[in-house]
């Protein structure tokens, strides 16, 4: 990853952490000061969806033109996306505890998000259960496409069709409820970009480590042959 992208991510995150805690936010009942969690909880999910999208695109590309390099990218992006998703669900539970009354409310948005994470967790179980490299890459690429296709309705569509307390679901407006003057967007979007870039950075490190591992294996094979 390019150094200027890393520096942009760092600058954005520093700005978000300062502005997110210090700048004024709309005064709303029940939410009170916790409205600021929006700057930290929601970017986790946006980052996850973007990383899963990249993973999904590489899966399609893998099926079109199989190569171990593409397979490494599919895994790395899905892996970092899953980490962000787990952080998203944990922060959501903490937030729900103080605004909805309990950490797990069985809200359609929460349930959908949990199922989506389990679907992606199964992706790694599937990979772990196959020994043949080519077979593993091909089957898991197909599964990854299915996982992405399942995640979108689980997180974005089903919660909107039923009643949900989560903003942006079940007839609830998304952000419009909070940011009448859209001042929150000036912090929220930088947060999304910042965390997404950090996700890309970590994924790039993971891809490089995997590449090194495979090169070492190749060297060892060359010696023994």
């Amino acid at each position: 990853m390019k150094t200027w992208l890393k520096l942009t991510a760092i600058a954005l995150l520093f700005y978000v952490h300062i502005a997110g805690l210090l700048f004024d936010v709309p005064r709303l009942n029940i939410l009170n000061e916790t409205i600021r969690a929006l700057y930290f909880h929601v970017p986790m999910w946006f980052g996850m969806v973007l990383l899963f999208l990249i993973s999904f695109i590489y899966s399609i590309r893998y099926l079109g033109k199989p190569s171990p390099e593409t397979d490494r990218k599919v895994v790395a992006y899905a892996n970092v996306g899953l980490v962000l998703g787990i952080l998203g669900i944990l922060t959501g539970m903490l937030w729900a505890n103080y605004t909805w009354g309990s950490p797990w409310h069985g809200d359609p948005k929460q349930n959908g998000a949990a199922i989506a994470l389990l679907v992606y967790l199964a992706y790694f179980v599937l990979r772990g259960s196959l020994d043949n490299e080519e077979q593993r890459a091909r089957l898991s690429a197909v599964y990854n496409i299915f996982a992405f296709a399942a995640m979108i309705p689980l997180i974005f569509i089903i919660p909107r069709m039923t009643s949900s307390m989560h903003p942006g679901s079940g007839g609830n407006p998304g952000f419009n409820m909070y940011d009448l003057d859209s001042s929150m967007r000036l912090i929220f979007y930088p947060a999304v970009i910042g965390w997404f870039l950090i996700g890309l950075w970590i994924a790039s490190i993971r891809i490089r480590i995997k590449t090194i591992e495979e090169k070492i294996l190749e060297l060892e094979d060359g010696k023994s042959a």
Partner: protein
Amino acid sequence: MEKALKIFFCLLAVTLSFGVNAQSDVEMADTMRSEGKIYVVVSIILIVLAGLIAYLFIMDRKVKKLEDQLTDKKH
């Protein structure tokens, strides 16, 4: 570049000006803010953030070193 910086600071100024919202009876952490204790919290969070990012940089460099070692070995 200069233009971009100008736009950035204009945006910052606009955001700050939203701070003149009217006080209402919704309870917020106003006391903590007026006492300045909020800056302690911000500083602590920034230290954690800086530490984690520095750690990420170090890991990045370690991987680079491994890559270099590997290319040396191949030749």
